[in-house]
């Protein structure tokens, strides 16, 4: 790193370069950082009388985690080989293995993305998870109301619903309470729109296809009002509600619009579970990304790679092994136990 390392006879200290010593010290701090997270997870979990472990509920797949473990181990192995190459001044070999490592990191992130996608699509996100059947029913009703309202708006504005709708509802589901009011402010009250649509449906000069659309919409709305009433009366159980919703989803006329309404299961301690899951894997993924950036820095050197980079490669290797180490502990803790 600094020119002093070339003059070891003038210094007292360990027989390793500054940068390596610094890297090890940094890794020690990283151990503390992750052990705070992991420790928090362990104690929080031990302190919660229940914890969701059913893979069908949590959408945590051992195979995905296992595959990722394998990917990281393999990449760790390749980094060692790359360092070997550097030390033997076989830079082509080093480059090759670093490149492979980088690709494996991409694969890791790809699998991670797939897993995250599963969580997002089932709305297993911190703060979104109902913990009792009652909350689940409330939430599906909220989501359904969103669907109905956005249908109303879409139809009244003559917008092709397929394009603008899904994104919009996704958003509004997240911020249920807030966006609700916002939409009301910006657009004319939904109720007025609804009456307009009603009038349109009854008007003689409406085209057939339009009429069909409107009819489907009103059928959906009636269903919603009915379900909502039962939900408010507490005269419906979650199972029934889910069955009803499933039936509605199969309806050829309006089933497609119900995609944003989730099939909900109460998960006791689900929010804490999701918090911990995203915290641990998220920060680990962040470290992976940082590692990838460091690999890119070597890789863009291309043919210019030379023995000056030995220390650098050794250090990112150490860092990368650490990332691997963290995952080695995350895998059993999150996926298996």
């Amino acid at each position: 790193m600094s020119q002093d390392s070339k003059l070891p006879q003038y210094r007292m200290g360990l027989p390793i370069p500054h940068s390596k010593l610094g890297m090890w010290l940094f890794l020690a701090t990283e151990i503390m950082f992750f052990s705070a997270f992991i420790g928090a997870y362990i104690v929080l979990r031990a302190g919660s009388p229940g914890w969701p472990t059913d893979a069908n509920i949590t959408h945590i797949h051992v195979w995905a985690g296992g595959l990722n473990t394998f990917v990281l181990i393999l990449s760790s192995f390749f980094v060692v080989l790359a360092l070997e190459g550097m030390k033997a001044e076989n830079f082509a070999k080093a480059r090759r293995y670093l490149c492979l490592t980088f690709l494996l990191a991409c694969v890791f992130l790809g699998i991670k993305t797939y897993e995250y996608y599963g969580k997002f699509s089932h709305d297993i996100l911190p703060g979104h998870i109902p913990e009792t059947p009652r909350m689940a029913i409330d939430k599906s009703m909220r989501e359904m109301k969103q669907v109905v309202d956005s249908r109303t708006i879409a139809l009244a504005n003559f917008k092709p619903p397929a394009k603008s709708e899904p994104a919009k509802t996704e958003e509004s589901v997240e911020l249920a309470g807030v966006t609700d009011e916002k939409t009301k402010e910006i657009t004319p009250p939904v109720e007025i729109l609804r009456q307009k649509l009603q009038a349109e449906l009854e008007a003689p000069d409406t085209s057939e296809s339009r009429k069909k659309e409107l009819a489907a919409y009103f059928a959906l709305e009636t269903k919603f009002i009915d379900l909502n009433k039962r939900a408010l009366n507490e005269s419906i159980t979650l199972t029934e509600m889910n069955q009803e919703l499933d039936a509605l989803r199969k309806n050829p006329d309006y089933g497609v619009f119900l995609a944003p309404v989730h099939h909900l299961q109460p998960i006791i301690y689900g929010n804490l579970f999701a918090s911990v899951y995203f915290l641990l894997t998220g920060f680990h993924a962040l470290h992976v990304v940082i590692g990838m950036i460091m690999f890119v820095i070597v890789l863009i050197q291309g043919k210019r790679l030379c023995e000056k980079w030995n220390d650098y490669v050794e250090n990112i290797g150490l860092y990368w092994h650490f990332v691997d180490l963290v995952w080695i502990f995350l895998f059993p803790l999150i996926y298996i136990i």
Partner: protein
Amino acid sequence: MSVLNHPPTGLQPILKPQAHHAPGNFITKYIFSTDHKIIAVQFLFTTLLMMIVGGALALAVRWQLAFPWESMPIVGPWLFAAEGGQISPEFYTMLFTMHATVMIFLVIIPILAGTFGNFLIPLMIGADDMAFPKLNMLSYWFMWPAIACFGLSFAYAGGPAAGWTSYPILADLAQAAPGSGNAQTLWLFGVTFIGFSSMMGSINYMTTIINMRAPGMTFFRLPMTIWGLFITAILQAFALPVLTAGGFMQVADRLLGTCFFYPSGLVINNAAPTVGGGQALLWQHLFWFYSHPAVYIMLLPVMGMVSDMLSCMCRKPLFGYKPMVISMSAIASLGFIVWGHHMYTSGMNPAVGMAFMVATMMIALPSAVKTFNWTATIWGGKLEFNTVTLNCIAFLSMFIVGGLSGIFMAAVPVDVYFHDTYFIVAHFHYVLFGATLFGVFAAIQFWFPKMFGRMMNEKLGKTHFVLTFIGANGTFFPMHFLGMQGMPRRYADPYLHGYLEHLVPMNQFMTISAIIMGLAQILLFINIFYSMFWGPKAGRNPWNATTLEWAAPSPPGHGNFDFVPMIYHGPNEYAVENGDKDFLMQSEKECLPPDKKHETDTDETETSE
């Protein structure tokens, strides 16, 4: 560790042209500099600036306590036009939160590690710079995002209002403290940034100290200052990541809907019941796991510096160098297992509380060793009362008070009464202001000549000392009595409660003392700026001190030493017999008989105080 054959003489001829100016233009030389000395000076001025801010906030706090709900003079009507110049209760909360934040994160920690750590480590161990100069620069520049976050948080976003401890649920859920929505988040980002800054610093310091010592500088020849800074860096490296982790969790709770720190079913501010699952106590553990070691981070460097300064001022070797090192390490390692003493009444498991109590009691032991050793260093010395000495003695005297009040609180049953009363406030101001800040004043005075090549003014220094000492004791000693009376801290208006009504006069007295103390700091600033330009020129070694930095030019050029440093002794060889002078520098092999004039005489100008 490599064993070296020492060349026979102390000062080597210049082997490489080291002591010269930093390359580059003004910007790279003075602003984005990678020279540890420039960075140290940058830290110094930034932290002093922040001290004004933190002090002004403290004075606002004091104003409210002495004259509750009365318009602040001068600034009041301007700041709070709407309330008729009054401080609102929310604002009071923000005031002490910011006061503590600024004082701890932006003054004490950076001035110790940033200024003195940066300045002294390479000089004292005989290196020409830090191991990672760029990282060093970055660590300074990471302070500014932190300052920006804190500033924005205070000025724009409504102000963080949960105390510097940021306990959930108050800090964790926006609805718990309406109005401080983004402020708390920004505050947490600020803490994270300052954490990154400290982290980079501490890794740098550790690497430098481990790997860049000059030949002959074994670990047990390191000056106490370096030991203090080294152990501080270790503490920081192990404790800080935990706070950062906790901070991220709290940010996630605030922004992303996670629920690490709040349970379900809380009805806050008439909002819907929370859906969570976490636990509030978790934050306290994570926070104090850092923040207790942090209080020693705020003390150990000063302990080290005072050890060196005292022994220099007493012209006497430090009494018990090894026990001092060992007790310092003991403080550090015990410091990791006492964090629970902040949580005795928090609803923690009482058995754990008991374990923490025993550990806390035991931590007084190494502190006792240190106190006694300092006293023994003075004993039989040859002392002169200059500003440095005075501030060092004040450090010692005030540390004893602060430490002894710590014993009351370490006793769990007594802490049941004293927790979160002004007794605590008294305790930590005695250790933080009384010990640390007086130590810092001494250190500024002592190393100023090395930083700027000029001496500081003694008269101004002494006046500043006397006023500050009287002011500090007048402000902080009565806090013990307030605590005895059961006055809780963080109260905007304690006099609402019948049993505290009669405490107004005492608080007014404290406020007046605080104002005196605050005004006294102006003298310090005058002294610094005046002496920087017009102070008498200092030679290499104005204090006749022994450590290595005094063998370098004042101020040292880029690369620090104009000779190759070699070390032959421990750091505090004063009162040596049969020498031509009463001290032996670390870089001198042996003392010359009195009749022979020393060849490379390092004191070019004898400056007298």
